[in-house]
């Protein structure tokens, strides 16, 4: 079946260090979304990428969608303690909210 693999599963960084999580789909996606789930919370939408090779930035966060629309990455520059949580990528195959989620990357930031 369709799968989205996300690595790493866990990442511990020192505050101020950079962080990257990667997603790879077994099939071509129509779009990819990123969500953040704080400890004890629920997934909160961060961004959606639709175009091949698209790059979007939100302050210290940079999101990329691969040329083949099968992979994506989220890069955080100079992490802060507020960045702690689990980051999920989720691939879409059409224009609905039926998404294929990656396993998530849990980020811990040491002050």
């Amino acid at each position, binding site marked *: 079946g369709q799968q989205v693999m*996300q690595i790493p599963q866990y990442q511990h960084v020192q505050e101020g260090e950079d962080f990257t999580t990667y997603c790879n789909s077994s099939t071509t996606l129509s779009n990819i*979304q990123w*969500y953040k789930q704080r400890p004890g919370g629920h997934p909160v939408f961060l961004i959606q990428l639709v175009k091949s090779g698209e790059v979007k930035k939100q302050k210290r966060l940079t999101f990329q969608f691969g040329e083949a629309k099968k992979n994506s990455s989220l890069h955080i520059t100079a992490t802060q303690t507020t960045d702690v949580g689990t980051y999920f990528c989720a691939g879409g195959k059409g224009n609905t*909210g039926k998404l294929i989620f990656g396993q998530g990357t849990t980020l811990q930031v040491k002050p």
Partner: protein
Amino acid sequence: EAGVTQFPSHSVIEKGQTVTLRCDPISGHDNLYWYRRVMGKEIKFLLHFVKESKQDESGMPNNRFLAERTGGTYSTLKVQPAELEDSGVYFCASSQESIVEKLFFGSGTQLSVL
């Protein structure tokens, strides 16, 4: 504006019992989704309602799961009879009509089947 609300937040039941989860989407959101996260694994799609109609229920594990959305407002997800492997966090999400740009998730129901 109220977000997506789910009830209960936690439920502990014994194997063989019945549990009903409820989701109230954001007012005006025609699209309602159920997702499940089992044991720290990926969040998996269960089904999708557009108003009161089931648009896609391809993710429902088996016929022990029954979802309804009478009147196109709130939705319920019933598990009967519950099995151990049904334990996990059940998330509801909603979105406005037309092209989906993002899902608004509820806080989830943590279901533990003992």
